């Protein structure tokens, strides 16, 4: 009692003992041991490491990489356009329209993307030609090239998911703002453009980035309908030289590079659209990285240093 009393008077000199996070030390040691085991294991692996950078920069590999990017962008674009339309249809007061939108989502979320790719690729088996009878007609095979089949297969699959993303964005807008827009004489279309969409975009962008990153990788499915993207390029390499693991790892590296670029892009787009300006965090990518990954910051989280004296 008297001790506390006297210390209250001398609070200037009382040291503070930082929390020692023993659990963090233990788990770090376990992880480090596992990492060493992995490295040792890999060094015994029968992989010609030098082949990986070689394959990585093969012309066919880089061409495949570009094809992957083109297909992913096209599919995501198609998915976004159709997804937004479907989401708006679901809001429709016309029961037929909103039901159709629901049914569309139900169907295309239900079909595996790979299966959808096969269906579009083999469409010519069911329909020899496409068009309006007597007006124009084209051979299905010339329309549904591997690229177009992949575009529709992956794009329609994505559109069903994306419609739900957009719907969530719409639902996040307070209905009061919609009524306020109506009360000053804004039409429903104008309210959608000026009030709902700009605010929904903020909610929609992070999952869009997620979807695009998924899409980059899902394009590898298109290799099974002979669209020559990254995975197929790797396959072409190892089918001639049998360096299977090396070629696959080169492809892996490319996917990692693409996903990294997409993640950085997502960060900047989120920053551009996500700013509410009223509550925007001013932290930059560099700063937040520095803060979480700097040695000082890391040590602090283990309870090293940081101790001090209360004022």
């Amino acid at each position, binding site marked *: 009692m008297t001790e506390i009393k006297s210390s209250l008077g001398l609070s200037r000199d009382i040291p503070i003992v930082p929390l020692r996070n023993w659990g963090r030390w233990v788990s770090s040691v376990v992880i480090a041991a596992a990492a060493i085991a992995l490295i040792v294991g890999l060094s015994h692996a029968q992989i010609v490491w030098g082949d990986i950078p070689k394959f990585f920069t093969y012309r066919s590999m880089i061409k495949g990489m570009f094809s992957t990017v083109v297909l992913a962008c096209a599919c995501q674009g198609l998915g976004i356009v159709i997804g937004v339309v479907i989401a708006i249809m679901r809001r429709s007061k016309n029961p037929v329209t909103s039901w159709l939108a629901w049914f569309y989502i139900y169907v295309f979320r239900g079909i595996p993307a790979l299966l959808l790719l096969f269906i579009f690729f083999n469409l010519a088996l069911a329909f020899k030609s496409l068009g309006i009878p007597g007006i124009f007609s084209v051979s299905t095979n010339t329309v549904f090239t591997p690229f177009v089949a992949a575009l529709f297969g992956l794009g329609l699959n994505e559109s069903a998911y994306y419609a739900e993303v957009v719907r969530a964005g719409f639902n996040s807008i*307070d209905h*009061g*703002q919609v*009524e*306020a*827009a*109506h*009360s*000053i*004489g*804004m*039409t*429903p*279309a*104008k309210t959608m453009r*000026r*009030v709902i969409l*700009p*605010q929904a975009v*903020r909610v929609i962008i992070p999952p869009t980035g997620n979807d695009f990153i998924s899409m980059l990788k899902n394009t590898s499915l298109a290799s099974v309908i002979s669209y020559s993207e990254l995975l197929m390029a790797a396959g072409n390499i190892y089918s001639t030289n049998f360096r299977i693991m090396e070629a696959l790892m080169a492809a892996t590296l490319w996917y990692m590079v693409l996903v990294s670029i997409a993640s950085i892009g997502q960060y900047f787009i989120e920053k551009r659209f996500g700013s*509410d*300006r*009223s*509550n925007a965090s001013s932290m930059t990518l560099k700063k937040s990285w520095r803060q979480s990954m700097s040695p000082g910051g890391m040590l602090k989280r283990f309870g090293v240093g940081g101790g001090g004296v209360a004022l």
Partner: protein
Amino acid sequence: MTDTSLALLRAINVHKRFGHLEVLKGINLEVETGQVVCLLGPSGGGKSTFLRCINHLERIDEGQIWVEDKPIGYRFANNKFYEIREREAALQRVPIGMVFQRFNLFSNRTALENVAEGPIQVLKLSRAQANERANQLLDRVGLNGFGDRYPAQLSGGQQQRVAIARSLAMKPKLMLFDEPTSALDPELVGEVLSVLRDLAAEGMTMIVVTHEVGFAREVADKAVFMFDGVLVEEGNPDEIFANPKHDRTKQFLSKVF
């Protein structure tokens, strides 16, 4: 075309149902140009619903609401009422301002942009003209210099005053206030009521749903009591407050004072 002998707002036998629940059971009300009408009564009595019907945020099931020479929600031709599309309804709402309990400002736009939005998008004013009008209105509601603030950076009272300015920017002939101070901290109520007082003094026609009996007594030309979707008593506020005729009104006032 406009018959000046007619009241600005005429509600005739207005019914509104939500499913089986009849919220408005035949409301009749007239509001003259320049009049301030306070709608009083317990929550759930249909006051807000009636206000929302006037602005066609709710479609009425029976009866008519005329604002000037326009039947709300309809086009009158060939002695028939034709239901109108949302696009036309939007036009009908332009001369009718509405202020909500929860302010409902556009949270992604500044105070100035909130006020200028209607003039730019609906009245097709140039941005410069709209901003000038918006600045004048912000000044008028005592928010000079707050134009570049976002709603989240404003207090409730300030947000509500921006919302009032946003409605005024459309140069309305009739202003509807749906419990404009109910969501405010007690010390912020005064600043909003004083804006309403100024508007009333300038001759704005207003219908105010409120629980502020003191305000109603001071500012209203007509007090109207509504219980369970029925308009039970209306008249001069001093007379009604001093000596209510209907039992429900007596009961209500005895609880409020």
